[in-house]
């Protein structure tokens, strides 16, 4: 941390304790305030504080009105009054004096007067008018400080109507020689723009001048206006894109004066402001965006310093990059940046990373994939805000496949949430995604039950309204509609049989309506049972009259059977004398209708929703009645608006008897062709009276009609419900899911990890399937399209088979590609994209691991990748290669065991030397093993005895191949020890260590250690497979990793060329190349398979490795990277 900060940190507490130190008597008058503050600090109760402040206010009141109070004293009084108001005690008697102080004071006194005005008054306060003259005067003052003050107050607080009075003066200041005046004038105009945009329309060209002002401060101030104007009308300012880019370029390049730097970052807040403007201009505009790419790239590059403020800039940059017309290169960098944030141990950065990711996934949901494990960790984060932000993120990536898990998470949080605001917010979100993506009826009803119970009466009314609308309108499939309603009825009956007193009012209303409308669907359910349950609700103490009215209406629909009648009789008698007019009305309806079954059947026909409702919106049928009434002296009709005004004037009881906005709701329901539940009272012809709730409901339904409700319009498949349990994610292997099912798996991964993995697989499923990434909203789950097909009457068994496959997207897209070679290539295309994109996604995350695994190459035994450089040549087994081969190598070659000659052997590496004994080694690639040859040469002139070589390794299984161990080594002789090696576990490099001991001719024992490193590829052998076998194996492997690799450039078929390199250098087997994709297989000795899927994407090779062996994919990937880097 810089000195400044440290100093600040130490100085501040005392500085800001607002205590007046005894020695600092520069302004002795502050001591009164100081003693007030000190007094308050010492107090322990709110009550004491109140007493003290009231005393203080009385004292202030006394003094402000005294004619002898000087302006300086007045200033001091104002500060004290500000303090009292700050603590929440009104000091309105001071307001006028504040204005007076601003008017009559000088210098600081005047400034404090203005300050007090700004703090005390609000925009439309009537006293503000008294300030206009003072401002006018000060604007014309020759004292620059007074002009400054006037401009400051104007840019904070000014009566809208008085703007014309001062506008010319403010405009004039735009050309003032002092930059501070120009800057403040711009800010004043910004304020005018905010409160009265049309007043400043004529000076737009002056804004441009301000933008080009030579003073950076003035330019910065003008950006506020531009941001606002561009927000409102981006099209109008496209021509300025270049200017903003140039400004940003200069700022980023450090062209501003030093004092604009903050912790040596050039004017960070200005950069942020400019980035915001650019993102508005570049949105959906390719040509504007193209102008920005360079400077955005530079901003990303420059902001590499490790400081919060650079991260703040980066965040803005990332947002901008994802808002404007996309450019792959920048997107990639931005995604990396988000990755850094999210993985940061600093919690503030993690938060901002999540926020960025939440923003970004709306454009590109696949990005969430690469951070899935981090996201899951954040979900359990102890810090609530991180958790909350994560839920927000999950909400944005919800789709048809992960909805159950995400909703579960949201509901979990809701159950613990104590904050009403959060509850309401999340409630709406759950309802939204449940409606859009519900996998089946049962789940939907159960989820909505939870929402209604948890949300209680806090819930926005549109949630129950929407829900009822959905249930009543149904879908195209009658059977499904019936099932949904049946589920609801069943569920509600059991809820009412439980503890209905615990249910919130809104939920009870929903229940009543559904039971009234649909309980007849359940044939074994006696209407009497339902009526009794409903009657019980009526008896609940906490049932509101609104709820009771819903219940009565439901009962009216259930007048059937004698048992029900007797209950109803009692109910209607009770409520026909209710004090509540609405209830009384309902009871009357109930009574009359159940006495007249024919009328009942006519007004409340069953399944009314299937018939379009004819509505006479002009109410012409009432004409006769109206003219009669008018003739009889009734008052003419008044519009609701007119009536309301009169009501307000009369302050009469608000009964709103005619308040129903019939035309709107009626036409709506006729448009829908169905009966909307909330308009039920009208359709049943019962009520012109219906209370205001149906009125409100009518308007909400209207609004909601704009909401896209995917779920509601889609048909259902009956088999869906059973299968929706677990959908494997595209990034998740099928066998992991198997593992969960079959728990006898010999080596189950750690439980916690596995749980997380599972969670990940269910949370992030289906993210890759959204093929168009530019969509803001959630595109419809792909499978729905196919489901419609199933409805096709021609659907043969074959088609339905295909459909059922598609509903649950293939566990892994590769097998789609690989196994179904007979498949239409077009069909497999989306899934391929999906996979590659997701594999690309994880690239950044893996990148760090790879970097950590980097080795120092200077190592003697270092696994020089160059070992392989000669492979081709040595395969020929000849010493006549043109490569320079060391003399020693040459001689050693001649010692190669017969069966190794002609095989693929590495360079000879000296291991150690001791007393004339030299050890060298090389390894020889054989098909089923790796042979390590240790050459022991005795260059001394004497023999050594009791020679023992021991080779051992933790990584490698070593078995000695030499028939007889060497015991004696004669002078100038070379002995060869052969070992067969297979890998125990994969690692980037496997190390073999050894111990040599021998006795010197003089019998002195000698011991030397050596070690020999073998790169993983030495243990890799091609694995020959058919495409089908590959597909099956792929599914079975659980460990995977993904990364983007560089393609071999400048060749025609770069995929082929790249795979050739890998095949040559790493001994992989290319199984097949199909278009832009290739599949490769290999095994780790002795027989551990590893599969690789590659796809060319955006100039890179997206590879995805899978294996049953942990770490093998990662290690192999490292070598793939190395191999390609060397090309």
């Amino acid at each position, binding site marked *: 941390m810089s000195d400044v900060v440290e100093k600040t940190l130490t100085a501040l507490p005392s500085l800001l304790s*607002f205590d*007046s130190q005894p020695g600092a008597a*520069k302004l002795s008058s502050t001591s009164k305030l100081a003693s007030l503050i000190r007094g308050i600090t010492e107090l322990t109760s709110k009550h004491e504080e109140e007493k003290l402040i009231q005393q203080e206010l009385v004292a202030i009141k006394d003094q402000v009105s005294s004619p002898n109070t000087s302006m300086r004293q007045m200033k001091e009084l104002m500060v004290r009054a500000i303090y009292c108001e700050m603590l929440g005690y009104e000091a309105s008697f001071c307001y006028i004096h504040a204005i007076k102080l601003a008017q009559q004071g000088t210098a600081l006194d005047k400034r404090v007067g203005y300050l007090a005005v700004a703090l005390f008054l609000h925009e439309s306060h009537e006293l503000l008018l008294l300030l206009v003259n003072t401002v006018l005067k000060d604007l014309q003052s020759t004292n620059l400080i007074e002009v400054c003050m006037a401009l400051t107050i104007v*840019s904070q607080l000014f009566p809208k109507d008085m703007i014309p009075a001062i506008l010319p003066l403010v405009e004039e200041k735009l050309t003032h020689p002092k930059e501070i005046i120009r800057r403040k004038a711009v800010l004043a105009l910004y304020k005018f723009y905010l409160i009265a945009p049309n007043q400043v329309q004529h000076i737009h060209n002056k804004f441009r001048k301000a933008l080009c002002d030579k003073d950076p401060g003035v330019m910065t101030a003008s950006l506020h206006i531009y941001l606002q104007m561009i927000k409102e009308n981006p099209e109008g300012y496209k021509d300025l894109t270049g200017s903003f880019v140039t400004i940003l370029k200069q700022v980023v390049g450090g062209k501003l004066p030093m004092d604009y730097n903050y912790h040596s970052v050039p004017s*960070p807040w200005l950069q942020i402001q400019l980035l915001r403007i650019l993102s508005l201009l570049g949105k959906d505009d390719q040509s504007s965006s193209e102008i920005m790419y360079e400077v955005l790239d530079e901003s990303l590059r420059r902001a590499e310093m490790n400081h*919060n403020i650079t991260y703040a800039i980066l965040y803005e940059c990332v947002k901008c990059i994802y808002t404007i017309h996309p450019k792959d290169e920048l997107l990639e960098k931005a995604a990396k940046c988000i990755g850094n944030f999210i993985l940061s141990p600093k*919690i503030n950065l993690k938060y901002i990373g999540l926020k960025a990711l939440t923003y970004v996934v709306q454009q590109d949901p696949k990005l969430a994939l690469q951070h899935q494990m981090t996201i899951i960790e954040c979900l359990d984060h102890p810090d609530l805000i991180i958790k909350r932000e994560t839920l927000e993120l999950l909400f944005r990536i919800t789709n048809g496949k992960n909805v159950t898990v995400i909703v579960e998470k949201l509901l979990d949080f809701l159950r613990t949430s104590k904050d009403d605001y959060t509850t309401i917010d999340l409630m709406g979100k759950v309802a939204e995604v449940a409606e859009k993506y519900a996998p089946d009826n049962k789940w939907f009803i159960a989820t909505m039950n939870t929402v209604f119970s948890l949300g209680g009466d806090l819930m926005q009314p549109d949630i129950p309204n929407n829900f009822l609308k959905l249930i009543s309108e149904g879908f195209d499939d009658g059977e499904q509609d019936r099932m949904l309603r049946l589920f609801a009825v069943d569920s509600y009956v059991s809820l009412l049989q439980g503890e209905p007193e615990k249910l919130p009012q809104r939920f009870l209303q929903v229940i009543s309506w559904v039971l009234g409308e649909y309980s007849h669907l359940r044939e074994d359910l006696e209407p009497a049972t339902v009526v009794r349950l409903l009657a019980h609700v009526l008896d609940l103490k906490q049932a509101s009259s609104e709820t009771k009215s819903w219940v009565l209406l439901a009962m009216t629909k259930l007048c059937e059977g004698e048992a029900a009648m007797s209950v109803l009789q009692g109910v209607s008698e009770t409520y026909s004398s209710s004090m509540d007019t609405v209830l009384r009305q309902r009871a009357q309806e109930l009574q009359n209708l159940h006495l007249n079954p024919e009328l009942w059947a006519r007004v409340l026909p069953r399944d009314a929703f299937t018939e379009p409702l004819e509505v006479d919106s002009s109410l012409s049928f009432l004409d006769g009645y109206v003219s009669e009434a008018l003739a009889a002296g009734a008052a003419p009709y008044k519009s609701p608006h007119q009536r309301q005004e009169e009501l307000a004037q009369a302050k009469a009881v608000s009964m709103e008897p005619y308040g129903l906005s019939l035309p709107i709701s009626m036409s709506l329901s006729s448009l829908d062709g169905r009966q909307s539940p909330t308009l039920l009272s009208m359709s049943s012809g019962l009520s012109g009276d219906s209370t205001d709730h149906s009125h409100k409901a009518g308007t909400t339904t209207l609004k909601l009609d704009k909401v896209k409700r995917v779920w509601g319009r889609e048909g259902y498949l009956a088999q869906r419900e059973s299968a929706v349990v677990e959908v494997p994610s595209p990034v998740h292997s099928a066998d992991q899911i198997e593992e969960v099912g079959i728990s006898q798996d010999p080596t189950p991964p750690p439980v916690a990890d596995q749980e997380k993995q599972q969670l990940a697989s269910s949370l992030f499923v289906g993210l890759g399937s959204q093929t168009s990434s530019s969509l803001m909203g959630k595109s419809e789950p792909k499978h729905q399209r196919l489901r419609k097909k199933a409805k096709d009457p021609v659907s043969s068994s074959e088609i339905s088979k295909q459909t059922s496959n598609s509903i649950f997207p293939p566990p892994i897209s590769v097998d789609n590609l690989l196994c179904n070679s007979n498949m239409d290539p077009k069909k497999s295309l989306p899934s391929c994209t999906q996979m590659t994109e997701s594999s690309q996604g994880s690239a950044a995350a893996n990148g760090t691991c790879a970097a950590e695994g980097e080795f120092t190459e200077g190592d003697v035994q270092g696994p020089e990748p160059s070992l392989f450089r000669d492979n081709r040549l040595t395969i020929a087994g000849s010493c006549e290669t043109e490569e320079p081969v060391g003399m020693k190598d040459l001689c050693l070659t001649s010692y190669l065991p017969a069966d190794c000659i002609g095989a693929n052997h590495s360079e000879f590496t000296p291991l150690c030397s001791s007393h004339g004994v030299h050890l060298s080694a090389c390894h020889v690639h054989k098909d089923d093993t790796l042979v390590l040859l240790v050459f022991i040469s005795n260059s001394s002139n004497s023999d050594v005895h009791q020679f023992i070589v021991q080779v051992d390794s933790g990584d490698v299984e070593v078995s000695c191949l030499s028939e007889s161990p060497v015991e004696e080594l004669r002078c100038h002789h070379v002995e060869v020890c052969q070992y067969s090696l297979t890998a125990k576990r994969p690692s980037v490099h496997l190390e073999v260590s050894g111990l040599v001991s021998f006795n010197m001719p003089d019998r002195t024992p000698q011991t030397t250690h050596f070690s020999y490193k073998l790169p993983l590829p030495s243990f890799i052998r091609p694995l020959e497979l058919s495409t089908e076998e590959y597909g099956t194996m792929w599914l079975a492997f659980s460990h995977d990793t993904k990364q983007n690799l560089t393609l071999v450039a400048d060749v025609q078929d770069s995929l082929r060329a790249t795979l050739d390199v890998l095949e040559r250098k790493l001994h992989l087997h290319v199984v097949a190349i199909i278009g832009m994709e290739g599949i490769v297989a290999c095994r780790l000795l002795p027989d551990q398979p590893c599969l690789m899927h590659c796809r060319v994407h955006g100039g890179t090779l997206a590879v995805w490795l899978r294996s049953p062996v942990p770490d093998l994919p990662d290690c192999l990937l490292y070598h793939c990277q190395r191999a390609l880097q060397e090309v």
Partner: protein
Amino acid sequence: MITFVLMVNRQGQTRLCRYYQSINMSRRTALEANIVHTCLSRSRDQCSFVEYQESKVVFRQYAALYIAVGITEDENELSIYELVQNFVEVLDKYFSRVIMFNLDRVHIILDEMIQNGRIVETNKSNILAPLNALDKMADG
């Protein structure tokens, strides 16, 4: 945008508050009490951003003093977090010699930095220029 700036001491007593949206006094006290409660209960290793109803609150602690800034959802939390530091550095620069009570001056400084909830100036010398001029007038 910024909705308020609040400075409180460890006892939860307000030392300065400035609102950029009109808010009535009773709601204000409730809000301050809530925010103080939230901020005081957070440990240093917790996130410096909290949610308060529809807005976010960025807060920073300087020994016994807490500064909390309310912002809307579209604001950049980290930049505000650093703005607070900048504000504190300005205060430090100005009040380096005489340590005394100065509610009015702190307000004047804040007014130079934030107006209508927007960051209008961050250059320390520009921020202090008007106040320094006033001081000069008073002295001379």
